[in-house]
């Protein structure tokens, strides 16, 4: 199997199938499916696992080769987007 399955049962009932570039998330509470870039799905898993904001910013900065300020803006937008589609509270 080339995919990786991640079950997240904390806060949300999410199941994630990760392929190399993209991931599909199923929210069993809403019944919705979401298509995300795999890196963004990875960030979602970290967020739901309670990793600190500083560590998330560092990860974004390293992945996209951008400075801290830009990474923070990216993360804030990501939070808003995930809240909008009920992936995080």
């Amino acid at each position, binding site marked *: *199997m*080339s*995919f990786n*399955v991640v079950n997240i049962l904390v806060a949300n009932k999410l*199941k994630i*199938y990760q*392929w190399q*570039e*993209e*991931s*599909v998330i*199923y929210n*069993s509470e809403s*019944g919705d*499916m979401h*298509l995300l870039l795999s890196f963004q799905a990875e960030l979602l898993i970290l967020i739901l696992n309670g990793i600190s904001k500083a560590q998330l910013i560092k990860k974004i900065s390293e992945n996209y080769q951008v400075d801290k300020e830009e990474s923070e803006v990216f993360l804030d937008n990501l939070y808003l987007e995930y809240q909008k589609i009920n992936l995080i509270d």
Partner: protein
Amino acid sequence: MLDPVDSLKKINKDLKHSGVRFKTGPFNIAVTSNIPSVAKHIHHFYRHYQKITKADFVDFHVEVNSVGGYRRFYKPQVTFVFDGYEPFIPLPIEQAPAMFEWGLNWCVANVAHQYLIIHSAIIEKDGRGLILPGTPGSGKSTLCAALVNQGWRLLSDEMALLSITDGLVYPAPRPVSLKNKSIQIIKQFAPNAIFGDVVMDTLKGDISHMVAAKEAIVEQEVPVKPALLVFPHYQENSKKQLIVQKKSRALMALGEHAFNFNVLGDAGFDCMANLVEQVDCYDFTYSDLESALSGINSLV
């Protein structure tokens, strides 16, 4: 099989009294009807199906009857009843055979949750299952009808029954439903194919059914391992394009075509993900039958 020597007269009589009982794939069906065109339809399309006895468990008890009262004389109508429930509003009586078929589809889609049910045609060649999910107008039934006339085995033109336990697709072969221009296209493509009457002006347009090949009925209990998932898109005057689809995109698209994915929840999602992982996925745009068939046949 329903006794081939059974005359239309006998089927008509049975339908009015004890009912006609037959098996299609995993489903046992008992139907009663007081409408002669339904008797004709069952005689024409189902007389080769395996007969079941009164002692056998029946999955779907259905009634296709004319509406009583003054309606019998003024714009007569037909109703479809499943276990005492009427899922549809009555339709003009000329549409009774089509309503019987739509009603059976409704029964399967709403009850058979031991399967992930995908709105798709499913056919097989050399042990490889080809799933063709599609919205109305995508051409899935037309492609299916043409391919079964080229030697592919029909499992269903309407629903793929994907087992959530073993990942195999189970057949439930029934007549292939064709609409509008597709009727003439397939009649020209396969002059030996056997059709029923054309039912005009239904909600879906003009409808005609094509008889399922006897081989499909004989092998109606033989499941198939899915190998190909092709999303067809008929687009007038378009150039043929067969594009490999990412597994993630195929999973999202499959979610749009699975009738009962939300009923099954996690198990349905797992089932779909495992399916896309084990098959080759394609997005297929075409404008004419000949190029469509060459595209599909290039995959096997």
